[in-house]
């Protein structure tokens, strides 16, 4: 237990001293997470809304595809993105392998189906009475769409928080596509894996503390959003 308590005290010291190597991994994580989450939201929110709101041919197949994407092993996503970005790959000319944008591509493939699926579910599960309520007050088609979007807002924010939690804690894709390059693509999770493998517990624990704090904040946010989005039928006036 000595080595653990010693590692913990050294970890706290590293954090308090704002150790550059430790914080390099924190900033790399923040950058790649922000980039992939932004792209996931930009693409996923409208796609998820469309999937949940509109009835069109092939909708079930599209839903099945998204659900399948959700269950893809991250190591497979890493492998596919690696194959695409490697110098002999289709996107090899872009030179994105072992870069933050390259990692963001892989993590977007991880986050995008979460956003699409949860947004579609949120829209599908808006109160079934909403359409008639809004129409009876004089809404046109676009105002009905806007009302549905507004009613699903908490659940859509929950989707964003869930995708964030998944992206920030991912290790396989970050390792394979990012290459775990010090000062560059080394993220919190890949650094923890590396340092633990080398027996350097202090930095691993320090980064673990940061990741756990992030997870705590995300879970608090998710808890608050669940509360805000809950009870969709409440306040109803059905007789």
């Amino acid at each position, binding site marked *: 237990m000595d080595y653990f308590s010693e590692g913990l005290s050294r970890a706290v010291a590293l954090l308090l001293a704002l150790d550059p190597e430790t914080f390099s991994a924190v900033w790399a994580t923040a950058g790649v997470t922000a980039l992939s989450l932004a792209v996931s939201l930009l693409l996923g929110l409208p796609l998820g809304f469309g999937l949940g709101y509109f009835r069109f041919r092939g909708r079930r197949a599209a839903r099945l595809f998204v659900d399948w994407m959700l269950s893809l092993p991250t190591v497979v996503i890493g492998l596919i993105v690696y194959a695409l970005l490697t110098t002999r790959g289709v996107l090899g000319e872009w030179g994105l392998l072992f870069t933050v944008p390259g990692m963001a591509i892989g993590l977007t493939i991880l986050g995008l189906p979460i956003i699409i699926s949860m947004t579609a579910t949120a829209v599908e599960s808006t109160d079934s009475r909403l359409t008639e*309520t809004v129409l*009876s*007050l*004089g809404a046109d088609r676009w105002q009905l769409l806007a009302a549905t979007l507004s*009613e699903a807002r908490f659940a859509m924010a929950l989707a964003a928080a869930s995708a964030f939690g998944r992206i920030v804690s991912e290790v396989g894709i970050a390792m394979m596509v990012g290459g775990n390059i010090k000062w560059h693509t080394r993220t919190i999770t890949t650094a923890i894996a590396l340092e633990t493998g080398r027996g350097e517990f202090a930095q691993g624990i320090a980064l673990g503390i940061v990741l756990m704090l992030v997870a705590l904040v995300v879970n608090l946010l998710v808890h608050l959003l669940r509360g805000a989005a809950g009870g*969709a039928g409440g*306040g*109803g*006036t*059905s007789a």
Partner: protein
Amino acid sequence: MSAPQLYSLRGVAVSYGGAEALRVPELDIAPGAGLGLYGHNGSGKSTLLRVLGFLLAPAAGVLTFEGRRVDAAAMRHGHLLRRRAVLLGQDTCLLKRSVAANVAYGLKLRGEPFNGAAGEARIARALALAGLDYAAYARRSWRQLSGGEARRVALAARLALSPAALLLDEPTTGLDRASTEHVKAAARAARERGAALVVASHDLDWLRDCADTVLELKDGRIVGTLG
């Protein structure tokens, strides 16, 4: 020359899956009139209200509203009709917003003032008509309301719009006596302000209190007038 009617229905029919759910050979509703619809479940009351509320297009017949024929072209802009004839249906819910925002929503859709002093005054008047105090209720969340309060907020949202026709489908089912009286008073107030009132209910006494004429419906047909 006869007075212009708000609604005029001639041979209006509605079918669900091939089965005829409603047939109204002739019905006129004058501006400011009070009409009650009485009948058992499945008698066609709600279907008739949905036709009058322009949520359901008749499969046959001629429907005229405010002197204009409501045909397929008019139904394509049904929201303009629904802004004149508002329905408080059995399946009406509140938006996940405050009471004031729920009452203001219809005004917002119409581009009418819903905030500032003018908007607040209008919301306060509508809430008062439904027996709810603005100071006590305006900032409350939709979640903090009982079933009866939520129903009255939904009614206030419709009263705020000063519609030409107020259509109420079983407005007091599940409400206690006090809430029922508030809904009744609000319905009367809407009529005093010039709106035609069409109410569907199982409660014949309630209908007699609020309406000039009570029609009995059975199997989608008007089978008589109750005194």
